């Protein structure tokens, strides 16, 4: 009847930019990797969705349009030790280790100046494909070779989406994924009221806009990140009615030797504790915010103690009047790009999936290295070390695969140091996860009508029904309930769905083998699939085709 217009040649009509290494994420890990690679003379493409460098950790106020120029021109700082609009002096105290950031940013500026770095801000990777050389040479966009594929090895094609829409393909011989993490907010009654935020959201508001969420704030969840948020708010004159930490500092005792081997981390923690004490911020271990009350926005929270087994004592709650709440149950790595590229995952220390990497930050996919939180949440110091390590590995791969030159001997020394740092900081991260597990009873306060997935408006009863029917992974829950199918693609609710599903799985096996330790969303690993890493408009996709081939032919 009708010919479908079969097209044999690749019709995708995108400009291809060949580079040695593409780095996705310009936070601590990505910056460290980029600087290491650029210093060795590699052509680097550094991609970040934000408007400036630093990622979430060194989050900057929205950059002015001349941000890039100022970086290239290496202008003198406008005021004090800061650099004009990049981080005004009165926000510097919110940051940690800004000297490192300033140094990295300066190096990136130099590399930009030398034309070694192609910096793409406000840019996202909507999908990525590993392509082998045979296919690459056939692709119409690949004619601007001699590209990186000239040595016959496979390359990674990153299909990017810039501020003006689809922005072609970055074709890289090596990819470093440094996409960071977002914080976990677990559902509880009232968590969808205006005024209830994640502590990461509060910190981002402070760092980017110097805005505080309210005058009286309660913070709850678990983990060290509660502390800088509390001190940051307190320094702004916000009354922090309490830091409600689900675990006790005594959870660190078994890991004392690890703590001692990481004196910087210990000093950091003690400094926050001292600040909290000085500002008279109550720190309440083994407590949990179990409900937020209010009509149009949050007006109060209910807090209760947790017993030794991590279950909240709901019969004795204390009410605090507040006008904002911050919740943080730790972090969940952003794996979209790694999952799109089908990098193997494993269970991280906190029970959530992380990308499996070897001692050189290499993933299961050749050419793809991963650094920072996606390999396991561990904080900025670890991310810096992993980023630098990944950078050195890429440099060795691309400039000196046999490792015989004088330079490689020099960097060998540095490499050993960085690798030692990674191991030491990783052990600290493991201790941190062990000391700050999500308590097994976290869901005790969740009611049947509590919303779990906000995008698709799926309540807890629906999720628990699916779990009771046998769904034991977040994907199964999603397929039966639509939880996680909405705009955020499960970024908010997937941890909760996975924990609910895994919790039920644990309960069914408890008689046989009681599970000790933290609840784990073990079923999450290896069960996700994401071919599109970021949303992209259908019109932008359609425009990738040359006009003629988008019209099927209708020859009889």
């Amino acid at each position, binding site marked *: 009847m*009708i010919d479908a217009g079969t097209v044999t040649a690749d*019709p995708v009509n995108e400009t291809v930019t060949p580079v040695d290494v593409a780095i996705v994420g310009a936070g601590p890990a990505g910056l460290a990797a980029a600087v290491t690679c650029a210093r060795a003379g590699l052509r680097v493409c550094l991609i970040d969705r934000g408007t400036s460098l630093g990622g979430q950790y060194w989050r900057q106020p929205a950059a002015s349009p001349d941000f890039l120029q100022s970086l290239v021109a290496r202008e003198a700082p406008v005021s004090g030790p800061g650099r004009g609009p990049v981080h005004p002096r009165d926000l510097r105290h919110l940051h940690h280790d800004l000297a490192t950031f300033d140094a990295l940013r300066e190096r990136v500026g130099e590399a930009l100046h030398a034309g070694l770095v192609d910096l793409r801000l406000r840019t996202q990777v909507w999908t990525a494909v590993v392509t082998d050389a045979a296919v690459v040479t056939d692709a119409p966009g690949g004619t601007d070779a001699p590209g990186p594929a000239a040595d016959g090895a496979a390359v990674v094609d990153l299909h990017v989406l810039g501020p003006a829409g689809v922005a072609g393909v970055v074709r890289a011989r090596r990819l470093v994924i440094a996409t960071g993490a977002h914080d976990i907010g677990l559902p509880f009654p009232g968590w969808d009221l205006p005024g209830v935020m994640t502590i990461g959201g509060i910190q981002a508001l402070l760092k980017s806009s110097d805005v505080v969420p309210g005058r009286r704030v309660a913070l709850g969840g678990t983990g060290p990140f509660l502390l800088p948020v509390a001190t940051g708010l307190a320094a702004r004159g916000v009354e922090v009615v309490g830091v409600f930490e689900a675990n006790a500092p005594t959870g660190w005792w078994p890991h004392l030797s690890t703590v001692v081997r990481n004196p910087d981390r210990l000093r950091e923690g003690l400094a926050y504790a001292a600040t909290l004490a000085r500002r008279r911020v109550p720190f309440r271990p083994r407590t949990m915010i179990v409900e937020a009350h209010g009509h149009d926005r949050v007006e109060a929270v209910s807090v209760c103690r947790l017993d030794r087994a991590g279950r909240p004592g709901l019969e004795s709650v204390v009410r605090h009047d507040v006008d904002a709440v911050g919740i943080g149950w730790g972090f969940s790595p952003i794996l979209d790009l790694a999952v799109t590229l089908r990098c193997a995952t494993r269970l991280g220390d906190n029970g959530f999936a992380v990308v499996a990497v070897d001692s050189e930050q290499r993933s299961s996919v050749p050419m793809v290295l991963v650094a920072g939180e996606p390999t396991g949440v561990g904080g900025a110091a670890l991310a810096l070390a992993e980023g630098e390590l990944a950078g050195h590995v890429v440099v060795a791969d691309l400039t000196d695969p046999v490792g015989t030159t004088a330079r490689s001997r020099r960097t060998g020394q540095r490499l050993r140091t960085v690798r030692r740092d990674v191991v030491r900081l990783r052990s600290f991260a493991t201790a941190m996860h062990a000391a700050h597990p999500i308590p097994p009873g976290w869901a005790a306060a969740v009611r049947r009508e509590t919303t779990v997935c906000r995008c698709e408006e799926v309540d807890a009863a629906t999720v628990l029904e699916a779990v009771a029917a046998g769904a*034991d992974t977040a994907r199964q829950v999603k397929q039966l309930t639509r939880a996680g199918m909405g705009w955020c693609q499960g970024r908010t609710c997937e941890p909760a769905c996975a924990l609910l599903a895994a919790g039920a799985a644990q309960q069914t096996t408890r008689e046989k083998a009681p599970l000790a330790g933290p609840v784990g969303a073990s079923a999450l690993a290896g069960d996700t699939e994401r*071919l599109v890493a970021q949303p*992209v*408009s*259908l019109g932008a996709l359609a425009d990738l085709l040359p006009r003629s081939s988008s019209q*099927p032919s209708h020859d009889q």
Partner: protein
Amino acid sequence: MAADASPFEVLCNILLSIAPMARGRGVITRSEKGERMGRVVVIGAGIVGAACTWYAAHAGWEVVLVDRGRPGAGTTSRGEGNLLVSDKGDGPELDLMRLSRRLWLELGDHLGRDRLELDEKGGLVVATSDAGLAGLRTFAAGQRAAGVDAIDVATAGDLRRLEPLLSDRLPGGVLYPEDLQVQPVLAADALVAGARQRGASTRFGVEVEGAVTSGGRLTGVRLVGGEVLGADAVVNAAGTWGGEVGVRLGAPIPVLPRRGFILVTEPVGPLVRHKVYTAEYVDNVASNDAALQTSTVVESTRGGTILIGASRERVGYDAGMSPKVVARLAAGAVEIFPFLRRVDLLRVYRGFRPYCPDHLPVIGPDPRVPGVIHACGHEGAGIGLAAATGYLVARYLDGGPMPDEVPVSAFVPDRFAEVSV
């Protein structure tokens, strides 16, 4: 037959295999069973395996449904959930589909239409050129002669009365009110849950390694790890992996993967009322070409997202992403629904249709290993044909009678003469 079998074994096998093939005889005769019905292992918990489990359990069989993964997690979760008569010309598949349609409506009444998201939305096939419209009309006339409800939509204006957001540049189309849609994972889940109430049990995360036979007759299946599940019959409902399961059971059938991508948009509400697709789809479904083919299929879901298909290519189990295919599907969709230009793509599903060389499913007892019944190879029509497939499998288990309106011989595995053990 195995090349190293003695002539005596070959003769025994032939005699044993003929017996259950005789019309009116089941896998196990009533006298052998006495009052107790036999035990059936169904391999594959996709929509077809779920339907086989449901119908067999309702026929009184003790069913064990096994899957190496999780229920409905394979091809079942990668489709639109189409129950289409519109894409089928006069022939055995149309007959099977019409039986299946009736059964799906019954299942909907039994299990709850909302639970399955069963929607009698109707299909609207649009032509993108005058020549295409002429071809579509000829095709529809043939279907009408076979009893399909196919209504000519004469003008662009008529099309837009049915689908207000369609492009005004389309010359016309054909409306098929009988086309249905279900949400496949929910439907599979509901069928398995219903079967459980009838005594069926499930084993997920286990993989079948081979058949256990005695005297040429199947007595069970062996799982990886060594456990044996005793069975009087085993149903191969492994979908795209039915070829591999067939090999393991000693009854290979030619099922190959045919890759397809489906685009899922952000939720925008029920802006597309029917399943709308272009006339090229019918030809692509019937094509044997291994190269990439795309046609445009657009429909809304209960969740407010819009699903966009359909691509077909034979690239083995290549699980990678193809920006080229995704771009072509997007271009096709915005051509017939211009409003989609501004809508965001959120997800892409990639699935592998179980493809047989003659595009017909394999449903029926395997003469080479008595006790094995195949129920796979439905290509892109597995959701639609699942109900009838489950029904036929239950009839084969019972020893008939087979429904008169379906030429069941068109689907039996015997038709693949060239495939040998």
